[in-house]
């Protein structure tokens, strides 16, 4: 599991949910300000990360993740070995 792989999964999910070109999403992209993602979008993203990588994210942790890069950091730091 590399940083690039996790990033591609997140971008693919967001692109599909929000009808955005994956190439237009980068590590600095902010979920709410740049993509206008709502709470349901973020909830389904968290589910996707949990299902794909086995990470468990509390509501408090989720609230601190505001960009694509931060989401990638979280997965890399918390995915089971």
């Amino acid at each position: 599991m590399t940083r690039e792989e996790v990033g591609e999964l997140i971008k693919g999910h967001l692109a599909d949910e929000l009808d955005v070109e994956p190439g237009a999403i980068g590590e600095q992209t902010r979920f709410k300000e740049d993509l206008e993602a709502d709470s349901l979008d973020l909830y389904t993203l968290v589910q996707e990360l949990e299902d794909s990588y086995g990470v468990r994210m509390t509501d408090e942790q989720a609230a601190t993740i505001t960009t694509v890069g931060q989401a990638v950091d979280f997965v890399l730091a918390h995915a089971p070995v």
Partner: protein
Amino acid sequence: MTSQEAGTEGALGVAALREDADRSDTRADVVVAVDCNGADLGPAEVAAGAAIAAGEGVRMILFGPAQEFGQALRDAPDGAIEAVDAPVSIAKSPDPASAVRANPDSSIVQAARAVAEDRAQALVCAGGTGAALAAGLFNIKRARGIHRPALALVLPVPGRPVTLLDVGANAQARAEHLEQFAFMGVALAQTLLGVGRPRVGLLSNGEEAERGSPLVVEAHARLRERVAGGASGFELIGNVEGGDLVSGVADVIVTDGLTGNVALKTMEGVSQTLLRAIRDAAMSSTRAKLGGLLLTPALRGLREEIDPEGQGGAYLLGLRQLGVVPHGGFARRGFARAIMRAEQGVSEDLGGRTHAALARAGALRRAAPASARIASLPGNDA
């Protein structure tokens, strides 16, 4: 006569279903995924309903304990029904969202996945709104441009059915959600109920535009603006009160899921209590029984008209494909109706009509800003 007996033999059973099946020759080749678990009368009853629908030309994939489908598969035309053995049921789970994710082999998840993977084009779930909503959201996903899916129910009001939404998908809502619910309800009324230009009302505590919660007042203003643009396809009649749910002043009534669910359960409770009281009165004496016998022919027609099974159940709108959730207490006729309505909704492009109407009115959830703006942010690798 029980509902079960009326399912295939009753004159108004199959005949009414066949009438709906005689649609134009634009009927698409649609497959309906049916979760057979969770019904009160068991998977075999759902499968029996599927056999009825198959007899009217609908193709299906049934998900559930396959050993209980046997008779239905034998009754159905060859090739109309594919059976997938999926005995795990999460219909009664107290936490449907967790259950859906923890049980990927459950019948509802497999059925929803079949729709997500385009092996089927509509979902019918016999066993529980919560599981259907969770499985639909996680697998079929929200339709693009939609804020929130909604659960719509067609109230069987004599003479003019009324579509009420949301009846429980969203306990909390924002004005833009209600705005989109109006368009979803209109598309349903036009597609499945044949209402050309539906009259839409917002459920409130008074008819005046300024009455109601801030949510209702804002939703009213938004819808007024959309209708003023002339592209809405419906007539906004304004606020309606609780009593108007069954008065026929509106074809589509919009509200948040909490209010809609409370209204629905209130109506169900009142009607059950009334029916019980009428039945008790009719059995209270010999004269009353005779009077009941005299009334029976007249009441039979009314009973058919207000039978919830006739409407097929609740409609899950706003996902990428249509979902229909028949009441768990239905008999085979009701399940057949749900399956046929699901097929009809897809054939007549209920989802596409909704999207087009929202687009014309400028009410789609806005896509993200232009990619150029995102790409220009430092650190982005577009």
